[in-house]
């Protein structure tokens, strides 16, 4: 663990000024950052503690009928917040499927958005080759044990997956991320927040140095009655997803009037299934061949020796999650 200095920010403006200094990193829950510092993977020179900025911890209904979630809202509080639990149960379910009760008490929404991959070769600095940790050094996972790795959206340089459950639900729910810097405030859809690795796998997200996530906005809820987060993993709890599926459906009788569907555990970012959603819209569930549609959604999947099970697992998971969300199967 490298040593670092520590400073506490009292408000967003002072946090931005402090965070703009070279080598500075924001810290909130610390569940990922402290772990990465211990492993020598992150080596900040100064930590800017933002946890006392109370304005960033609020969860408020917005004028547009949606919800504004402050970046410091703990994952645990968010999951059981009455508005989230009643109108965005997909998000509650995804949050409660992640990590442990202790970690959810610590982890914040902003930190969860920036959670780094759990690729074994990234996480263990003993491996020399990791393009995400050390650009240009190679990828140990491609020829290594790549069971947890990406089948969609990876590159020659990196096949690490985004480990977040929360982000998969947020992708399906059309969430928008608000980011502030000394230059001002800007917003982007959650689906554009995380990056595909391409030739720059060291950059997980479209977040510049010194930029601070301040909120996540959810539009008015359409999927309160019909949603489901299905998470498949090696043990029943406290494990990262091998495959997860977030499904939100808006139904008018038997017709699907809107759908939000995203995959986790299979790609470097939450993987929104746009074409699959379009295929569902305006149709009756009974007339759809969900299995064929799900297979098409995974048509571009590329597997490696140890993750060949993922496309088929994902295909079946999509079908099941849609059927559960629609009320055709028991959870």
């Amino acid at each position, binding site marked *: *663990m490298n040593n670092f200095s520590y400073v506490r920010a009292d408000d967003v403006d002072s946090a931005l000024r402090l965070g703009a200094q070279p080598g500075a990193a924001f810290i909130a829950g610390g569940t990922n950052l402290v772990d990465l510092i211990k*492993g020598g993977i992150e080596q900040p020179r*100064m930590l800017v*503690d933002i946890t006392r900025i109370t304005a960033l911890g609020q969860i408020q209904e917005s004028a547009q009928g949606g919800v504004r979630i402050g970046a410091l809202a703990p994952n*645990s509080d968010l999951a059981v917040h009455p508005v989230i639990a009643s109108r965005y149960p997909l998000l509650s379910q995804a949050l409660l499927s992640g990590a442990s*009760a*202790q970690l959810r008490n610590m982890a914040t929404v902003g930190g969860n958005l920036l959670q780094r991959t759990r690729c074994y070769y990234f996480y263990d600095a003993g491996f020399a080759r990791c393009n995400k940790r050390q650009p240009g050094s190679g990828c140990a996972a491609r020829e290594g044990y790549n069971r947890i790795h990406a089948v969609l959206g990876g590159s020659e340089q990196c096949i690490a997956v985004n480990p977040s459950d929360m982000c998969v639900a947020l992708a399906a729910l059309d969430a928008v991320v608000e980011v502030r810097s000394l230059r001002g405030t800007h917003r982007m859809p959650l689906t554009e927040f995380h990056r595909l690795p391409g030739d720059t796998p060291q950059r997980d997200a479209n977040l510049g140095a010194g930029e601070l996530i301040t909120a996540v906005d959810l539009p008015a809820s359409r999927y309160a009655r019909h949603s489901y987060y299905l998470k498949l993993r090696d043990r029943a709890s406290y494990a990262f997803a091998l495959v997860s599926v977030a499904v939100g459906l808006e139904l008018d009788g038997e017709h699907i009037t809107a759908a939000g569907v995203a995959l986790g555990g299979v790609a470097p970012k939450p993987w929104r299934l746009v074409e699959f959603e379009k295929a569902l819209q305006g149709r009756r569930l009974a007339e759809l061949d969900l299995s064929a549609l799900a297979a098409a959604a995974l048509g571009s999947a590329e597997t490696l020796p140890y993750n060949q099970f993922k496309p088929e697992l994902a295909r079946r998971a999509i079908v099941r999650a849609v059927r559960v969300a629609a009320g055709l199967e028991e959870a």
Partner: protein
Amino acid sequence: MNTDEHDPKDAALSRRRFLQAAAGAAAAGAVLPQSLQAQTAGPSAMPGSPETPDVTPVSLTLEVNGVRHDLQVEPRVTLLDALRDRLQLTGTKKGCDRGQCGACTVLVNGRRINSCLSLAIMHQSDQITTVEGLAQADGSLHPLQQAFLAQDAFQCGYCTPGQLCSAAGLLEERRRLGAAAPALDDAAIAESMSGNLCRCGAYPHIVAAIRIVAQGAPAGTGAGTRGDGA
């Protein structure tokens, strides 16, 4: 249970080394005694800036189990290490030291957290409760401690302080939710306690102990409870 308190320091360190080696922790820094790390880090009189980080120990007041402690810690010191190495509150255990086992669970303002992943310096003015603070001042045990004893909910005992604090956090979460708290069957207890690993596999007895306290269920019913009525 808190045999660490009576161990010679070297013996405690060698056990730590063994546990970390067994867990596959390879980082050399992780097994350095904190006193040595502090020496090698060295004091700095430079003002804090990213180029020359000011790692001089800073003043901190921790309120632990109702007692205020003034101490000087480097910014990098975790709450876990501050509790164990500085305040000699060795009931809180250092298992994986990476947020994977839950042995270090403590309560901060009533909420359970992993103290190994939390910096001590971030807990100024927080109210911290460790396993040493669960019992009453007169020594009478917390209902969870009584239930753990009655249900034989541990074997080696290493995870027990974390299990107890985590279970206390679970009860507090349910108290705060009030009527909105979901039903707490054995599966829900296991799910809520999944952040606390027990290598001895005492899980059925741990679940039973928590169920008894949470629901007031009689001992000797359901899976995993002892048949001898102890």
